[in-house]
């Protein structure tokens, strides 16, 4: 009997009713995905904005699945670093794509979990029967990040724009001081602590005593797994090149433990403990976009599209990293046990575990937390340790460290990958195959989702052996 301990005891009484309600819903299936290769900040996509990248990701998806002129139920995507002119970004991208202009769209934002939250939103609408098909995705660019002006200059501009006379306009600008002319560069620091994400994670890393060697090993595996997957053609139907880039720019197929070990620490250098986090075992800032095509089974069948997997369930968690004692990126440690409990599953029931590598140590602290009896009891409200993750199931085709991490685009990348992995495993074994997707996010947020292969549904030609031409 797997452990199932809801985090909040007050919700206990309703769990059976909830489970039944979920069963009554129809499936939201994952048809496939598409992304553009992820580029290093200031690299190949330096001149491409979010709109260009998300439109390219959409157009690649349309081409892969023959959706030209198709009206989809909804397209949901977003970006973390967004220009104010991109207020209706996703809808604009739909209009610029080969999809029907009658496809509705909206923007969503939940920091690094944006893409995964979009998948949850679209699949929930499909499960409820509100839409038959949808695209979830995300895009982010560091290279083309919006730059805000100083508060002083901003006030002056606003005042001047409201001024009726030239002298009033000039007067408004007279208040501007030289210091106000420096732009406010985009920051990923946490507004409440002023610490960067890396510095936050450095605190967590130190607290859990995660070694440099272990972090470098995670990073090395990420590069090796991603390179091997590209070589094997795994990404042939997941990635469409963009602006001449055909593979993730951050991928270092030839990296080694020695090379990673030679890098200088980048975060936690002012802490009393040894600094272990380097540019090699931390995710680089990246540009890119990804999308996932979701649908009801009927819609997929009617359109002769493959069904890779279904979105079973999802759980979001948040930690009080400001006043509490959990690290900024530890929310997935809370979300996953709640998600598994609801599904009646343990970590051992998962064939694939896809944990977003914000930093190698994020993955390692999360794994350590689940193995820690006391933490699981006191912080997660479990009976004891959640268990350990079989490393051979972890990020098997590479993850953020090697691929890069354009914030909102990461969820789509992982979900499409996970769906393909479980479909292939199920086809091979004939058994149901499951993948856990876990993404941490700024603000102490974390989103986890469960992806499962769909029994009896294959994408082989046998499915259409009746020869009917449609």
């Amino acid at each position, binding site marked *: 009997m797997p452990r199932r301990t809801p985090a909040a005891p007050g919700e206990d009484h309703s769990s059976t009713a909830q489970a039944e309600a979920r069963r009554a819903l129809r499936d939201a299936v994952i048809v496939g995905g598409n992304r553009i290769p992820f580029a290093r900040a200031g690299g190949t996509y330096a001149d491409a904005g979010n709109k260009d990248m998300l439109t*390219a990701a959409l*157009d*690649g998806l*349309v*081409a*892969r*699945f*023959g959706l*030209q*002129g198709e009206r989809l139920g909804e397209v949901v995507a977003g970006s973390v670093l967004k220009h104010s002119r991109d207020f209706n970004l996703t809808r604009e991208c739909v209009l610029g794509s*080969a999809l029907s202009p009658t496809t509705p769209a909206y923007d969503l934002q939940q920091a690094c979990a944006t893409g995964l939250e979009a998948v949850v939103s679209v699949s929930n609408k499909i499960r409820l029967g509100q839409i038959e098909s949808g695209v979830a995705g995300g895009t982010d660019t560091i290279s083309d990040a919006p730059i805000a002006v100083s508060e002083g200059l901003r006030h002056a501009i606003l005042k001047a724009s409201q001024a009726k006379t030239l002298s009033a306009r000039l007067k408004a600008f007279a208040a501007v001081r030289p210091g106000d002319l420096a732009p406010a560069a985009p920051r990923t620091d946490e507004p409440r602590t002023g610490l960067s994400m890396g510095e936050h994670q450095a605190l967590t890393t130190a607290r859990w005593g995660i070694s440099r060697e272990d972090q470098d090993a995670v990073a090395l595996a990420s590069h090796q797994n991603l390179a091997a997957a590209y070589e094997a*053609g795994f*990404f*042939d*139907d997941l*990635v*469409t*090149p*963009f*602006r*001449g880039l*055909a593979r993730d720019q951050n991928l270092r197929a030839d990296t080694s433990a020695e090379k990673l070990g030679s890098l200088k620490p980048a975060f936690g250098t002012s802490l009393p403990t040894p600094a272990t986090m380097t540019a090699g075992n931390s995710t680089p800032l990246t540009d890119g976009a990804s999308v996932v095509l979701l649908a009801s089974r009927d819609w997929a069948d009617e359109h*002769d*599209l*493959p069904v890779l997997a279904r979105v079973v369930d999802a759980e979001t968690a948040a930690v009080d990293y400001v006043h509490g004692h959990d690290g900024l990126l530890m929310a997935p440690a809370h979300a996953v046990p709640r998600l598994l409990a609801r599904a009646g599953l343990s970590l051992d029931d998962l064939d694939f575990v896809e944990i977003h590598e914000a930093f190698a140590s994020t993955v390692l602290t999360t794994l350590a937390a689940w193995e820690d009896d006391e933490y699981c009891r006191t912080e997660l409200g479990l009976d004891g340790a959640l268990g350990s993750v079989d490393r051979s199931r972890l990020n098997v085709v590479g993850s953020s460290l090697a691929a890069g991490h354009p914030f909102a685009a990461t969820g789509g990348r992982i979900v499409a990958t996970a769906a393909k992995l479980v479909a292939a495993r199920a086809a091979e074994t004939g058994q149901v195959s499951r993948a856990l997707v876990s993404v941490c996010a700024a603000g102490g947020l974390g989103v986890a989702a469960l992806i499962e292969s769909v029994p009896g549904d294959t*994408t*082989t*030609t046998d*499915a*259409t052996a009746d*020869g*009917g*031409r*449609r």
Partner: protein
Amino acid sequence: MSDGYISLVNGGLGAKVAKTLGLPRPSVLRRFTEGAPLTAGPVLVLGATTGTGEDSDILAQLLMSTGFAAADLEVHRTVVGTEHVPWGAVVLVLTEVTHPDDLSAPALDLASTLRSLAPGGRVVTVSRTATADDAPAVAAARQGVEGLLRSVAKELRGGATANGVVLTDDVDLAAPSVGAALRFLLSAKSAYVDGQTLTVGSAAGSAVDWSSPLDGRVAVVTGAARGIGAAIAETLARDGARVVVVDVPAAGESLAAVANRIKGTALQLDITAPDAGERIIEHAVSRHGSIDIVVHNAGITRDKLLANMTPEKWDAVLAVNLAAQLRIDDALMRSEHFTDAPRIVSLASTSGIAGNRGQTNYATSKAGVIGMVRSTGRLMAKVDGTANAVAPGFIETEMTARMPFATREVARRLSSVQQGGLPIDVAEAVAFLAGPAAGGINGTTLRVCGQNMVGA
């Protein structure tokens, strides 16, 4: 990519200068546009005065039949009166010749019409194949037709071309592919086909709606991300086919653009993968319900003089241009899905016919393609299928744009139409051979080279 010389010599001062200096004056070729008439003017059907003369009547009837062309095609049997000139086309029916003497009258009849052939006009001969089984005089007369049409092709100007339809002895004039071949050669779709013969070897093939000849067919085009492959995909889609475009993953961006333009699906795939054939079939059948046409367009060049050839360069070219096609064809012919009068069209090259300095590997692979379709065609006939090749000559693409200037200029002007062809010209030939009506044309290679001097 653009041939500025053509526009230069086709207007104003440029035309005058070119004429005075005796420079080649290539014409702007007549190309297919929706709704345009089949020919540039009325069609004159001339026949041999020997035999029963029935064949020319049958051909004239065929041209006037509703299934053949737009209802308003004007067909004449004599040159009496000149109110009909300029002629859009002259069809010379020589199927009944039994002696070289029989060629004299029709050849001279044709001669009298050449000066009144419209720009973009057509001369098409219809004759029988000369084989060793024929009496010497019959074989001589039949073979003579080839010399006649090839020389006429070289004399024609103004974008006019001369080609031949050749029937084997057992094929009736009413066979679907005879009309289809004649239609193709008369039309603007054969703009860059010149001095060539199309051999109809069987009565296979079925009539089609010419406004949408590939309606309901599912086609796969490899190497479709750009150039000739993209033009083929667009042309097959124009003709009504659902098209799967295939190219290597690295070319995925332009591949997706092609797919979205033609409402097809993109399949990123390296065709040298061992399971490429199976993956192509799986994609086409699961997404579109069938697979009926496969166009092997993907190809690479790794040019080097043989003396400097490396194993990598040799092997890569043979692997992509030939071995991959063989493996995919094997999978197709094993598949139960590739049985509804399927079509294979491979891209050969005039380099594979004439050879080309520095292209031993490429020419070997392309000559191999010519041999391959001959044999594959025989195997395909069992399921009413065909395998044919199209051999492009100098086509204006990104590849030829990279040639040195002088070499490129010479290559362009060496053909009878004094210019390079466009990707669409190759695509039209592929679409013709991929159509249901071309079932009687099997195992052959059609050159689309403007009768280039190199390549025989």
